[in-house]
């Protein structure tokens, strides 16, 4: 029973969602949107557990004075402050909550994202070595695109930008589609195995 009930619920949900796709009737649309609302509610409940884990991790660190423990205070304080601000003073466009989002979260996220410019340079320098035919092809096509999409590309040859565009649109597109088709079958098979209860790693152990 400890396995059969969850597996049964998984099976029923899976089949209902597949059938729903084929039924345009309002009853079916209403069903899909209700379930979606429930899913978000479930995510919110799971978040309580997850946040609990985070709090536990950091309080332990503080209590045991583990390395870097003062930073754990920063995390716990930041979380509590932001939650209180948003729950008490609301989330209107000119609330403190939105200001913190725009002036603290957005710059932090944007800068992490911008680190990629640096990492692309160091990764390319370290790894783009002509060790084999495959590695050489990767290197050459990267060069073609890096030159072709820049204004100076036209000085290599007037048709060079068009060539770079071709590399993107023809060989690149072909390989992406091929990979995508394979992935689709892997994904579909996994999803089917889950619904049919063949793949049950999410249940954990045998009991």
């Amino acid at each position, binding site marked *: 029973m400890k396995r059969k009930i969850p597996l049964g619920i998984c099976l029923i949900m899976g089949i209902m969602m*597949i059938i729903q*796709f*084929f*039924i*345009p*009737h*309002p009853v079916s649309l209403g069903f899909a949107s209700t379930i979606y609302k429930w899913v978000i509610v*479930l*995510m919110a409940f*799971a*978040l*309580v*557990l*997850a*946040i609990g*884990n*985070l709090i*536990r*991790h950091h309080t*332990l660190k503080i209590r045991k004075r583990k*390395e*870097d423990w003062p930073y754990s205070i920063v995390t716990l304080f930041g979380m509590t402050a932001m939650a209180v601000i948003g729950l008490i003073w609301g989330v209107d466009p000119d609330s403190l909550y939105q200001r913190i989002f725009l002036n603290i*979260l957005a710059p*932090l*996220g944007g800068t*992490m*994202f911008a680190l*990629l410019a640096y*990492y*692309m340079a*160091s*990764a*390319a320098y*370290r*790894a783009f070595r002509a060790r084999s035919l495959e590695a050489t092809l*990767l290197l050459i096509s990267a060069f073609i695109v890096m030159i072709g999409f820049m204004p100076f590309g036209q000085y290599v040859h007037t048709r060079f930008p068009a060539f770079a565009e071709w590399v993107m649109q023809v060989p690149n597109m072909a390989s*992406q589609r091929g*990979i*995508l088709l*394979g*992935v689709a*079958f*892997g*994904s*579909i*098979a*996994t*999803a*089917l*195995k*889950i619904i*049919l209860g*063949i*793949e049950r*790693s*999410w*249940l*954990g*152990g*045998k009991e």
Partner: protein
Amino acid sequence: MTFLLIFLSFLPPTDVIARDKPNDAGSTISLSWNLSADDALIDGYVIMKREASDQAGEYSKIGSTIRGVMAFEDENAQDGIPYEYVVAVIKNGELFESAPSEPTVSSPQVFHTGRTNVLIAIAVFTLMLAYFVAKARSGKGLFIRKIAGLAAVEEAVGRATEMGKPILYVPGLGDIDWTATIASMNILGEVAKKIALYDTALIVPNRWSVTYTVSKEVVKEAFISEGRPEKFKEDYVRYLTEAQFGFAAAINGIIMREKPATNFFVGRFWAESLIMAETGSQAGSFQIAGTDSVLQLPFFVTACDYTLMGEELYAASAYLSREPLLLGSLKAQDYGKLIVLLMLIFLTAFSFLNINLLGILRVQ
């Protein structure tokens, strides 16, 4: 003095046809008509309707279009009530009405005929899967080609033990509704079983609350099934944050401060892939990646020691567990790809014989 008033007259559109819109949730009627012969001269068309039972009633305006348009959808029909429609030409505010349409009733449909092909595809693939899984269950051995990177899993765990350092396993940034995340959970289970046998710590950071609960169960059960439940620590599986780059920032911190010997990045990834993989590479960790995110593959290939590309991720999860049932599905996947491949060739060949079958691929 008399004024000679010239009344200009414009021809209304003809053949106004009303039909219930197919494959919808009801309350919509599609209209079509032939353009007025004076289409080039007019301002546009006005669409009007009335309930067919109310023959004395006035037509009321429900919408308008610019000239040259010959279709309209009335999205405010009430199911079960017959309506009549007229389409009028409008010029300088004056209307010239067409003959009314036949009375038409809107209704919702219970099967979407435009999606029959998807239904057939699902049915065929499910049957194939069931067949090969049954065959695998009967104990026939299946050949699976070597997947580079899989052999490295054992090596990775061993290496961490030798160095006395932990293993970092990032199960992707996708929530549980991404199948890649499920495949990753499967691989996590196998990796955790190996770790349970050695004296190595494990760090599994999560971005989503639901994947956090699942990966916790998976790791815990893996330790139990290897008979080492006492070795499992609550702190192995952690929740970080839902913010994509906040998550990446925290992973960078873990890589730098807890110095894992091996990093696994397995699951669904977005732009943050290289932030984590490059940091790991600079820290000198041994790295194994696996993802079905086509756009992130180049970065993992560049920065990691081994990468499971695309479908290899799904194959790996079946391969590692070595369960015949899971292996059976690989065979079904291969046949699925074979069908796709043959369809590509035949549909292309047919199109050159002037037989256009592309319609069978279209989904509404």
